[in-house]
Structure formats: structure tokens, C-alpha cells
């Protein structure tokens, strides 16, 4: 019977081909050859519904590449030309991904504005045709539907999405410094209303399927299926296709209307937006907000606002609109900001891989020592991913606080509806809080997050090694103590590694893993595997004082102190740093990190690196600590912090300390711009030196570490990207100017000088 059916299908196919070849012999030739070579898109016909399947070869995700584009156009033209087909379903063959967006490699490869514009133009053309398709097209979405993928989906007549966690819709172009270049700026506001569309385009946020349904971004939801006669994912895709086909038929038969009933609020908003005055006010407000947030450092959001606004103009103009978008899309993609952001994207992809390969033994039981802010944070991101975790502290109050922190972190997710209360409870049951070493004999990895004190860490290491099994890894969460010094007292230094988390652990994406010369490859592989499981972006660096991140930050902090000593107001300093693109002002950063921690690090690293880490007088920090101004945690630092009060006032008690340590400012290097560059160049110089010394393996890791761990301006793409884009020569010139004023602290390192001397040398080729 199967054979018979197969023959039936074959004969049907050949019949079509013969029919067509009468009229268009020429086309048939190209058509059939394309059919043979088509690699990204295929389609079959079920009844009178064409099922178009997207499947980029050799990749986990579908991306909009040139090939996919041309094949899609081909396929759609065939569908439109066929008499037999009345409607179509667009679906991916990959369970976790509809279309993840434009191929970023393709965009990054574009050398000229013209190339990019042309890409955008081609996309717009086919999407416009799709939007006006006489045969209804249903997008069946399972997995990520992002950027160009969503623009494609909203050009279809109907959208059905699976209500899966993996199904997310969004236009994240803004995060890459671009704008939705294939008509999204026009179609999205029409579909979900201006406020929602602007929110999506300006934040680039991912929208889950159920939310998308409420917004009107998708028309129907399909529940993911459990096990049946096939693996759940496979059957869910089939089911999605089946449902999509019934809707495609319904649309073709006009039994289902593609129009959605809008709610009252939505109708009112839509009406209000037709009044020019209201509209202008809304856009003005949004623009103000965006300018405030981006400090004008990112061009893309403003362009997005412009375009979505223009789309309200008269019809004559709107016909030209696609061309403007294309042009602007091209322009944006060619900006430095976009290059920087795309570079970060690539770096992030790189840092989400385990370059050490799979570890011999999976870590299933984790133990964490110290239930402080860090320890509890690490516990939270671990239990979250199903790791059985022991949280051990020395005191019951400390343990209680830590467990509460984990619970609160999970409960906040419940409030945001990212978890159900049931899931929270079952996740929380992965955590065991205790005061002794019971159960450590089963641990595969121990992460210590005790106070930053070498002798304490030594004691803990010895205690732990007495109870853990042979294969168990000992990881130290420290921000500055060299791992090799900690490992010095270990019986098995090959199992000792550094895992430097950033606070707050559940929010900060970065994990800096530090390997000593003795650390075994398998230990590194395990640590990276655990980090990846915890959802971290990982850089692996060599051991040394301050590793990479702390070491880069220290000279900049030293400069912060000098600038404050020179009489610059902390508020002014904050605004100078944030307007350069740092997410947190420099003075605030000291408060957030903790003045005592900063002092600790400054002293430790100051001893090792000597004059190069000098500049500001550490006495400032010492005096602050002695007065109890430890920053946010003690309520006072440079600013005063009060529970529930958002406004920050300067701590007036600091005046006397600052006055006593006042330095005369040097006018030739004290302009606003100079102050900004004094901070940034010291940072960059130290980062490059880390690469030069081999602490860092690649510039990409350096950029990711700086941006994700230390808040280096993302629009600059990280210290190395910044050198490439801004020009090594210009940075060296600046450094030399400051060197003349302050001395050795600004001496450009050899590698940076090399780059300045030969302009062809780039960190990123």
C-alpha cells in the first residue's frame, strides 16, 4: 500500500512537470535544476496546501542567508504559479528554531553600504509580495523567530506558534546596532500597536508565545506535546504542521478570518495615535526617554523611532518608505557601533563553547562553601539547572540569609511568571543547606566562596580535601587572590581551579575561569561545563595577580581616585563615565563593589605591579573604610544609600576626606574628554598587556570579559575592538600625552605600540 501511494505521488509530480513544461520550457529547466540543488528550502503539497520547510544545512539554526532568500523566492513563485495550490504553510524542519534572524556573518562580511542595502532591498521585495499574497500563507512557528524571521512571519497572513519555552519572537536588531531592515518598522506597529511595537524594537526583547498571542503577534497557539509514538519534539512539529494546514485551508476557504478582534484599549490607543498632536507627543516622549538612556551613543534606537513615526505619513510617502529603511539599515550596519555590537555577538557565541571538550565525568553534585552574596548567588544559578547543590556556611544566620536569597531569587521569577510556584519548589528542593561537611563525599565539585583571605582559604581547602572524593574539583571564587597561591597547600593541585563569578551572580552573565600551570585539562573542561550549565558566558584566563578582569579594573579605579582627589565631583565623574557608555558611573561603581574590597584589591595589586597601578592615593580608601563608608552595603560611600529611596545624595562627610587629600589638577589633561580618556586608556592599556603576557588567550575573550563583567561600553565593543575601531595610534598618542603629565602609569605597552606602528595590525582581522 505504501508503495502504491508513493507511486501515486510520483506520478502526480511528473504530471505537474509535464503540464508546466508545455508553456514554460525554459523556466522548467531552471526550476528543475533548482529543485535538485535546493538546500535551504523544500516544499511538499498536502491536498491543496503547500508545506514549505526551511532547513539551513549543517547548522542548528535557520538564518536568512542569500541562498535561503533566493530559494524562498523561487519556491514562493512556484506556489503562486501553481493551480493546484490554494494556500501555504511555512514551517522549519528544526524543532528549536523557526528562523533566528539574518545571517550575521553575511552582514559582517558586507564591505560596502551598497551590499547591505541590496540585501535589505531583496528581503523587502519578497516580503511585500508575501504580504499581498493572493493565497493565504500561514507561518507555523516553533522555536526562535527573531529579526528577519519575525519580519517574515508578520508578512504572512496568519501565525501559529507553539507555546513552548523555546518559542520566542522578537526583533533584536537594535542589540546589534541595526534596525529591523525588512519592513518590521512599518508592519509591526500596524500589527501590535505603536507602543508595543516600539517597545519590541527599542529593547529587542524576546516575547514568549503566550504573550505574543495576547499582543496579537500570533493568531493561534499550539501546546507542545508529550511522548507519543514518536519523540515529543518531532511529534509536536508534526502536530503544529497539521494544525497549520487546517488553518491554511480554512483561510483559503474563507472560513477563518485572518483579522483579529482588537480589544477596547487597543482600539482606543490606535485611534489616539491617528491624532497628529497625540502622536507627536508620544514620539517626543519616547525619543526623550531613549536619548536619556543611550546618551546618544547608539544611533539605531533613534532611527527606529524615526521610521516607525514616518510610517504614519501619507500613502504617497509610504511607498518610498521601504527604500529609506533599506538605506538607513545599510548605513546603520556600517556604523562603528554596529560593528562593535556584532563583534560582541560573535565573541559571546565563542564564549558559549567548551574549548576543552567534554569532561570525563559530569558534575551532578555541587557543594558551595560560604552562603554569602556570592555563594548563594552561585547556588541559585546551579539549582536552577538541576544541579544537586549543598550550601554550607559556618553560621546558622549566614546560612539562613543565603537560603533566603536563593528562595527570593526563584520567587521573583515566579512573580514574573517565568516559573510556576510548583517549579520553584521543586527547584528549591535541589538545595541543601548545612553547617557541616555531610554529603561532601559525593560531591563532584566544590566551589568555595568564603571571605577573601588567603589563610582562611587555605584552611577551608585543607578541610574540604579531607572529606571529598578523589575526582572532586576544588574551585575558588576569588576576585584577586592568585589561584596558584591557594593551590599551594593542596594535595592535588591539578584539581584546583579558579571560578570568578560576578555579583549579582544571577544577573551578571560573565564567569572568569582561571587555570594555573598545574590545573589539568579535564578540570578545566569540568569547570567550563558547569559554568555553561549555569548559563554563563565564559572566558578562560591564566593565573596571575588580579587575573584579567580585576587587573584591568584596578588601574582605572586608581585613576578614579586621582580624579576625585583633583577635585572633580563624584556626580560629575559619574556623568562623564556614563556618557562615555559605561552603564554605571565610576564613583558609583566603587560604592557598589564595596570600598573595603576596592582597598583590598588596590593594596594587593599595588604591591605586585608597583608604580604602574599607582595614581590615586590609596589613603582615600583607607580613610573611608575607617569611617565605615563601605559603599552601598553600609549605607554610605561616596553617596548616601537609604532603603526605598531612589535619589542618591552625596555623602557630605566625604568632603573633609577629599579636602585633606586634595591634589592640584593639571589643566592640560583635565578637560572632560581627557578625564574620560584617562580612565579608558588605562583600562585598555592594561587589557592589551594581559594579552601580551598571555593571561588572555584571545582578544575576543578580553572584549567579552570587559563588557560582560566590568561594564566596558558595549557600543565600543570592548577594549580590543575599541583599539581596532578607534585606532591604536590615536590611543597611543593619548597615552603619551598623559604619560607626559603623570608618568609611567600611562606608558603604552609593547603590543599596543606595535599596533600603533603598523596600521595593518588589528586584533580582529
Amino acid at each position, binding site marked *: 500500500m505504501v508503495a502504491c501511494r508513493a507511486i501515486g505521488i510520483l506520478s502526480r509530480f511528473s504530471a505537474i512537470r509535464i503540464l508546466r513544461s508545455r508553456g514554460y520550457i525554459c523556466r522548467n529547466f531552471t526550476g528543475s535544476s533548482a529543485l535538485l540543488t535546493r538546500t535551504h528550502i523544500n516544499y511538499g503539497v498536502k491536498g491543496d496546501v503547500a508545506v514549505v520547510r526551511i532547513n539551513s544545512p549543517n547548522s542548528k539554526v535557520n538564518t536568512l542567508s542569500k541562498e535561503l532568500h533566493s530559494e524562498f523566492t523561487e519556491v514562493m513563485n512556484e506556489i503562486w504559479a501553481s493551480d493546484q495550490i490554494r494556500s501555504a504553510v511555512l514551517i522549519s524542519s528544526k524543532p528549536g528554531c523557526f528562523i533566528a534572524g539574518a545571517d550575521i556573518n553575511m552582514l559582517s562580511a558586507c564591505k560596502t553600504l551598497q551590499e547591505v542595502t541590496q540585501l535589505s532591498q531583496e528581503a523587502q521585495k519578497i516580503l511585500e509580495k508575501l504580504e499581498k499574497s493572493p493565497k493565504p500563507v500561514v507561518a507555523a512557528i516553533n522555536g526562535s523567530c527573531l529579526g528577519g524571521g519575525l519580519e517574515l512571519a508578520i508578512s504572512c497572513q496568519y501565525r501559529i506558534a507553539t507555546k513552548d519555552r523555546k518559542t520566542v519572537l522578537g526583533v533584536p536588531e537594535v542589540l546589534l546596532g541595526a534596525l529591523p531592515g525588512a519592513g518590521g518598522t512599518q508592519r509591526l506597529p500596524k500589527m501590535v500597536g505603536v507602543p508595543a511595537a516600539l517597545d519590541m524594537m527599542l529593547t529587542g526583547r524576546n516575547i514568549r508565545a503566550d504573550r505574543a498571542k495576547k499582543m496579537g503577534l500570533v493568531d*493561534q497557539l499550539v*501546546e507542545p*506535546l*508529550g*511522548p*507519543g*509514538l*514518536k*519523540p*515529543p519534539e518531532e*511529534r509536536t512539529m*508534526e*502536530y503544529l504542521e497539521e*494544525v497549520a494546514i*487546517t*488553518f491554511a485551508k480554512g483561510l483559503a476557504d474563507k472560513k477563518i478570518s485572518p483579522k483579529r478582534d482588537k480589544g477596547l484599549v487597543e482600539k482606543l490607543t490606535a485611534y489616539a495615535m491617528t491624532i497628529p498632536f497625540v502622536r507627536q507627543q508620544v514620539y517626543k516622549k519616547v525619543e526623550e526617554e531613549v536619548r536619556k538612556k543611550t546618551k546618544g551613543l547608539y544611533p539605531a534606537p533613534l532611527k527606529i523611532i524615526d521610521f516607525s513615526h514616518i510610517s504614519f505619513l501619507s500613502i504617497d510617502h509610504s511607498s518610498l518608505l521601504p527604500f529609506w529603511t533599506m538605506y538607513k539599515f545599510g548605513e546603520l550596519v556600517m556604523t562603528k557601533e554596529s560593528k562593535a555590537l556584532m563583534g560582541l555577538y560573535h565573541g559571546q557565541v565563542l564564549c558559549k563553547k567548551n574549548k576543552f571538550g567534554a569532561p570525563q565525568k559530569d558534575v551532578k553534585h555541587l557543594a558551595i562553601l560560604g552562603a554569602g552574596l556570592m555563594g548563594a548567588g552561585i547556588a541559585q544559578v546551579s539549582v536552577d539547572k538541576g544541579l544537586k547543590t549543598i550550601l554550607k556556611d559556618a553560621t546558622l544566620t549566614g546560612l539562613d540569609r543565603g537560603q533566603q536569597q536563593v528562595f527570593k531569587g526563584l520567587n521573583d521569577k515566579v512573580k514574573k511568571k517565568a516559573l*510556576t510556584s*510548583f517549579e520553584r519548589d521543586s527547584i528549591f528542593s535541589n538545595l541543601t543547606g548545612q553547617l557541616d561537611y555531610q554529603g561532601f563525599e559525593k560531591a563532584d565539585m566544590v566551589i568555595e566562596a568564603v571571605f577573601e583571605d588567603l589563610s582562611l582559604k587555605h584552611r577551608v581547602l585543607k578541610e574540604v580535601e579531607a572529606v571529598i572524593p578523589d575526582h572532586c574539583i576544588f574551585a575558588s571564587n576569588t576576585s584577586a587572590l592568585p589561584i596558584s597561591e591557594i593551590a599551594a597547600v593542596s594535595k592535588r593541585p591539578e584539581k584546583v581551579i579558579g571560578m570568578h563569578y560576578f555579583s549579582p551572580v544571577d544577573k551578571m552573565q560573565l564567569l572568569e575561569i582561571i587555570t594555573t600551570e598545574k590545573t589539568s585539562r579535564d578540570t578545566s573542561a569540568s569547570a567550563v561545563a558547569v559554568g555553561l550549565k549555569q548559563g554563563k558566558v565564559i572566558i578562560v584566563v591564566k593565573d596571575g595577580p588580579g587575573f584579567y578582569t580585576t587587573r584591568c579594573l584596578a588601574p582605572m579605579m586608581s585613576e578614579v581616585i586621582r580624579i576625585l582627589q583633583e577635585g572633580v565631583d563624584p556626580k560629575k565623574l559619574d556623568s562623564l563615565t556614563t556618557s562615555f557608555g559605561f552603564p554605571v558611573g565610576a564613583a558609583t561603581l566603587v560604592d557598589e563593589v564595596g570600598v573595603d574590597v576596592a582597598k583590598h584589591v588596590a593594596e594587593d595589586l599595588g604591591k605586585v605591579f608597583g608604580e604602574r597601578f599607582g595614581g590615586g592615593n590609596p589613603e582615600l580608601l583607607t580613610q573611608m573604610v575607617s569611617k565605615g563608608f563601605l559603599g552601598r552595603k553600609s549605607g554610605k560611600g561616596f553617596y548616601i544609600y537609604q532603603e526605598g529611596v531612589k535619589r542618591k545624595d552625596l555623602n557630605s562627610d566625604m568632603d573633609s576626606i577629599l579636602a585633606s587629600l586634595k591634589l592640584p589638577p593639571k589643566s592640560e589633561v583635565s578637560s572632560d574628554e581627557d578625564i574620560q580618556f584617562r580612565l579608558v586608556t588605562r583600562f585598555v592599556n592594561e587589557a592589551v598587556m594581559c594579552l601580551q603576557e598571555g593571561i588572555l588567550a584571545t582578544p575576543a575573550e578580553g572584549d567579552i570579559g570587559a563588557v560582560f563583567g566590568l561594564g566596558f561600553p558595549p557600543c565600543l565593543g570592548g577594549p580590543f575592538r575599541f583599539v581596532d575601531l578607534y585606532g591604536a595610534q590615536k590611543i597611543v598618542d593619548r597615552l603619551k600625552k598623559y604619560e607626559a603629565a603623570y608618568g609611567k602609569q600611562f606608558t603604552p605597552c609593547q603590543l599596543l605600540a606595535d599596533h600603533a606602528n603598523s596600521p595593518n595590525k588589528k586584533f580582529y582581522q
Partner: protein
Amino acid sequence: MTTILAYPFKNLPTTSKWALRFAIRPLSCSSQLRAAPAVQTKTKKTLAKPNIRNVVVVDGVRTPFLLSGTSYKDLMPHDLARAALTGLLHRTSVPKEVVDYIIFGTVIQEVKTSNVAREAALGAGFSDKTPAHTVTMACISANQAMTTGVGLIASGQCDVIVAGGVELMSDVPIRHSRKMRKLMLDLNKAKSMGQRLSLISKFRLNFLAPELPAVAEFSTSETMGHSADRLAAAFAVSRLEQDEYALRSHSLAKKAQDEGLLSDIVPFRVPGKDTVTKDNGIRPSSLEQMAKLKPAFIKPYGTVTAANSSFLTDGASAMLIMAEEKALAMGYKPKAYLRDFMYVSQDPKDQLLLGPTYATPKVLEKAGLTMNDIDAFEFHEAFSGQILANFKAMDSDWFAENYMGRKTKVGLPPLEKFNNWGGSLSLGHPFGATGCRLVMAAANRLRKEGGQYGLVAACAAGGQGHAMIVEAYPK
């Protein structure tokens, strides 16, 4: 029956492979019947075990099962349970004082009578010296009541047990919201007028929003019908197949009712109303009529409808269980042995209703029987889609290998031996009472149709399941 099965096939050229088999089976089975008449050799002659007491069912009864909101709507659960108990006393003439223990199953508890077994027993005139407790395990609560009794007898703690179950869906406890409850409790504790006033000032109108008993799974917040619809989709069970199966259930139940086979029913004289003598949910319809219904859970494209799901039901059941020697000593002729049983549980989200698939092979293996040894299958029908999904799971090597840790599939129960007198879809499904109905149906069928072993299986909320072997008592 053949006509019922063949009928849909004629209508629908696009039946799936499975439906094909479904329709063809009557042919093959009738030939089998002709070739090998009545006598079948069993793997085991009896399931009696050395040194373990035999547990027998003397008899069991139930009130008629009614759609909720009909004749029983003004009753309380213990009234229904009492009716089942008095019916049992009447049917078996068992002296009340020999009953050692009473166990009832129930799901949605009336707060006033949370140990409904005790309240009903007292009202039915049982000795106040006979202890009673209530168990709950969703749709297999009555099964749990029975097997608890089996355990008590087998371990020598008791000789005579009454087990049963009750559910009254006409009335469910609807509560005040948590906020309101808290306010009321605090008010209770308030000492001064000032405290009271300050508490009252916290009152908000939304406190009055009532809290309905959840029909959803607590762990997943998914309603059972929704899960059933997904299950049916996962096993690619079509709407038509489900409607066909529901029609079969209703037709067979109607036939059994008309032929007077549902002998476990005892009439119930509802206070102030007419005497109820039969189930009122049996409504054989036509496939055309059923096809018109809209999906009840996954809208607008799901396949589970009101017509192919079991309905909310009021009803109670009770059963007299004894140690064999005690029954014989008292001069009873028992109906059946209660043999091996098994509880299973699995993922409450995606395998919520697959209990029978998991429990069936386990209980058969435990008893040392095969599918072929079973003469009467009585499966709880929560939804057509659930029964058919279980069939497909049992018939799938892939499922057996990947989810059950078995090398080969469980195998399909032959349809001609399956729920021949209707099932929960048509007779109704009072959650707490269905278990006893299943066992009595199996026992009565074995007596009527001939045969030795019956298999009872059911799924339950929480992703749990149950199966038990019922062995006919030799005549």
C-alpha cells in the same frame, strides 16, 4: 457490535491505519472464535498463593450514577454513600456487627464530612464500634479503598471489610478567597473595637471573589481535558476515532442497561423525589451529531469534546470484601477473588492519563499471566482520547522501549473483551466511586460471559494509575 464498528468505516474513506485495524478486528476475531470455541487454556489455573489468605468479593452495589445537577443535587455526599451502604446491607444481608472496618474513597471533599466513610456508616446504622476512614487518590480512590481492605485482610488484621466510594459533583466547596479568610480569622482574634475597625478598614471588594475547587492539576495548572487533548494529539488520535469510541461506549451501555446486565445498581429513593433506578447519562447519539460539537478544551482546533469525555457525575458504590474462609463459614457464595494489584505513577504533565498502559503489563507480570489469559477488561474511560492513546501506547514497540523500559510492546486488549457493558464515558464517572464499579463489572461479566480472569485498570490525576486482577469465583 460488528455493525457498530463497521459503520464508521463505511462513512469515512480517510480512516487511519489504526482505524483500519479497528474495523477489521471483528472479522478476525469471529474466525478465531469459530476455530477455537470457548475453552482457552490459561497460563495459570488460579492466582491463589500459598500462605496468603484469599480475599473475596461477596457482592458489590452502587447507586445509579446520575449527571450532576439532576436528582441528587440537593443531597450531601454522605447521603449518597449511605444509600450505597444500606443497599449493600440489603443485598448481602450481612450482619452489621461482623464488619471490622469501613473504607471509602472520595476526591472533592465536603468539608463538613471530611471522613465521609464514618458519617455514612453511622447513618447507615453500622455499629459505632466499627471504625471507618476515607482515602483519596483522585479517580482511583475507590480502588485504593478496596486494596487497603485487601491488605488488611491478607495481613490478618481484619476478616470483613466494606469498601466503597462516593462523589457528589452537584455540590462542591467554593471558598472565600485567602485574603477574605485571613481577614475573617484575624477578626475572630481581634480583642478591641479599635482592632476590629482597623482590620475591617483593610477590606477590599476583591476579597469577595470566590475560590473554586481546582479542576486543574496542581503541579502543572493544566486541566485534565486539556491534557487529554494533548495526549490524543501526541498519539495522533483523530476526532473521528474518539467520537466512534464514545459512541461504542454509549451503545454498549444502552444495550447492557436494556438487557438488565447492570445488576450492581440498587434503586435509591431520593428524599422528597422519585426513586432513581437507573443511570441517566447513557445517550447513544450519532456520529453526525457528535461531529457538530466544538472542542471543549483546546479551542478552536482540539479534538476532545463534551461528547467524547466522561461527564460530571454523582454516585456512590460499596462492596463487601471478606477473607475467603470467613465468607464460606458465613455461608456466602462469593463472586470473585481480588488478586494482584499494582499502582504506578508517571509524569503528571505529558503522561497524565497513561496509567493503564504502565500498570497493565506490570500487574500481569506480577500475577504470571499474559494478555491472552484475560477474559474481561474493564478500563476506566476518562476520555475517548485517553483510552485510544493508551491503546496506541500499548501497541507501540517504540513507546515500550523508550518510555517503559520494555523490549516489546504491551499488546492491545482485544476490543471484543473490552468494556463490554459500557464504561465511564457512558455510565458516568463519580471520581471516588468508579473503582468499585469497575471491579463489579469485571466480576459480573466473568460470571455472565464465562471466563476466569478480569483486568481492571484506571488512570488518575497526578499521573497515577492502577490495575488489578479479578479472578472469578468457581461456580
